[in-house]
């Protein structure tokens, strides 16, 4: 029989959740905290380095350690990144890319959400024959590497005369965002009671009426999740923006890569890092402010079907 020297601490919660208890300071518990702390350091390292590098002068960067805090803090790299760096043709900074990304992201979020909602609604409540097979293929398409579809899409859009324009990139984001959006809404609507739908039909509602008056008002939580996922996905996209947006609409990610990897002459690491932070800012801010919704989105979208 084990004799413990410490008095039992009020341990786990009610019988419903009994995890393996641990006394507060066993070596195992210390080990857990050490591991987690070490992992946290590894994960935070790039963020720290990004921030710190972007606030130093180039002389400090060349002379000092990458981990050192700035001796002389300066926001000059940020100013340069925003309004002076050369992104290919012009040297107006990365702000052009920022606004491009905004102009791309907004319609590329609203449209897929709308269509995803209607799709999910039709699939989970009305269930027309054959729709599930269609949906299955749609989901399968989400796994197909984009390279298989890129060139034919280019030809199609060129044929329609819109290649290299804002409508083109929005359309492409719609096409590639549809599977996840539809999945999110379909699963969410499937969790709503079917009785609501039956009651609405008895009350005489048609397809669109029920959607607008009954289903859509109940969809706020999933719209939030979908918006977060889509904004993050579209803003962070590189390859689609590179191919379809056209020179005037290149998103921030493309311009960022141009700034950093196609520079001739001296590389301004601090400006580069400032530009990187600026590019990552929107999704990161979204993430830090809405963490729980973000995770919910991942769980809902990633656990397919």
């Amino acid at each position, binding site marked *: *029989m084990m004799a413990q020297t410490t008095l*039992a601490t*009020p341990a*786990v919660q009610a*019988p419903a959740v*009994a995890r393996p208890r641990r006394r507060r300071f066993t070596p195992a518990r210390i080990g857990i905290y050490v591991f987690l702390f070490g992992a946290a350091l590894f994960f935070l390292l790039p963020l720290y380095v990004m921030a710190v590098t972007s606030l130093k002068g180039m002389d400090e960067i060349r002379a000092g350690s990458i981990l050192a805090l700035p001796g002389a803090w300066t926001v000059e790299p940020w100013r340069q990144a925003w309004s002076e760096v050369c992104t290919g043709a012009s040297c107006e900074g990365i702000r052009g890319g920022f606004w491009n990304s905004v102009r791309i992201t907004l319609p590329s979020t609203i449209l897929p959400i709308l269509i995803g909602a209607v799709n999910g609604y039709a699939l989970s409540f009305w269930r027309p024959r054959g729709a599930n097979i269609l949906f299955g293929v749609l989901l399968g398409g989400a796994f197909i590497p984009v390279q298989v579809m890129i060139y034919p899409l280019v030809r199609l859009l060129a044929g329609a005369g819109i290649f290299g324009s804002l409508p083109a990139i929005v359309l492409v984001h719609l096409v590639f965002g549809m599977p996840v959006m539809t999945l999110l809404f379909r699963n969410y609507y499937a969790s709503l009671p079917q009785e609501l739908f039956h009651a609405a039909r008895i009350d005489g509602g048609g397809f669109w009426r029920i959607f607008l008056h009954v289903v859509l008002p109940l969809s706020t939580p999933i719209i939030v999740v979908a918006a977060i996922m889509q904004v993050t996905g579209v803003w962070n996209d590189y390859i689609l923006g590179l191919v379809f947006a056209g020179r005037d609409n290149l998103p921030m990610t493309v311009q960022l890569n141009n700034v950093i990897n196609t520079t001739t002459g001296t590389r301004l690491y601090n400006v580069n890092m400032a530009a990187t932070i600026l590019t990552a800012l929107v999704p990161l801010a979204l993430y830090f402010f809405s963490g729980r919704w973000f995770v919910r989105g991942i769980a809902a979208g990633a656990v397919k079907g």
Partner: protein
Amino acid sequence: MSNVHLRKLSITLGGKPIIRELDLNVEPGEFLVLLGPSGCGKSTLLHSIAGLIDASAGSIEIDGQDMTLADPSERGIGMVFQSYALYPTMTVKDNMSFGLKMAGTPKAEIARRVGRAAEMLQLDALLSRKPAQLSGGQRQRVAIGRALVREAGVFLFDEPLSNLDAKLRAELRRELKLLHARLGSTMIYVTHDQVEAMTLATRIVVMEKGAVQQIGTPADVYERPANRFVAGFLGAPAMNFIDGEIDLHQRFSARGLALALRQPVPAGAATLGVRPEHVRIEADGPLAGAVTLVEPMGNHQVLWLDCGGQVLSAIVHGPDVYTAGQALRFGIDAARVSLFDAASGGRL
């Protein structure tokens, strides 16, 4: 066959006291039922006997040994959970032998124990199946088998029948009773279902808000409830309660009825408790009432009576037909009533 002694046991969870200074002796071989509504602390108590929850004060002794701080696997207990908690990726046989393997039990001994449990619970045909391929009743038996192979002195049951449908519940209840008769082991059983408690227990511990309300045999608890709570908790339909006064001549009177009492009780405000089966519909009964509702139950009927504003339920057997609004006369068996103090609810 172990005994269990709880002395001044207190359990606090998340800052809130759940159990306060509880004393309880479980005799070897008895089937003790912890009965009470949800939140009364019965499950917490069981988990602390098992060692899954720490006690904040007091002691737990199993078979004369202090187990207050011992690990669950070292207390000589087996436990059956509400959700069965069978390891889903293992066969029935592996489920029952896993714990023994972990403890280093020799293979021959494992085989002997598993064989014995399987034979006792009729699991022989199911040994190579996985839990997903079993019915609810079969899974419950495997859960019991897993506890059995530990050859423990005490078996703990945490509402094992709650997840089953009514018919299966009744069937397994009977099997449990037979099992206890065959094994003779000490069993502590938690439930909120008073039918389970009445049919299975050698003694019932009625609990409410972390405190023991009464400990007694099923007959004790049913016929001589210690307070109003216990009286109202056991029996279906529930006991009828009538508030009134006891005068100096041992007469109870309330609005609409009066009764001469057979027991010596102090005078004052009191509540009369009478079970529906002790309300007798008689053509020449001393009390008058009218039927408000008839509930046919197959082998008996429940009549709801209005008696001068008081609502009473009565159980009648026999073929007589009653209709709502019908006036009738009835009597109350004064030898079987309970009287409770109006303020404290305690038995007088």
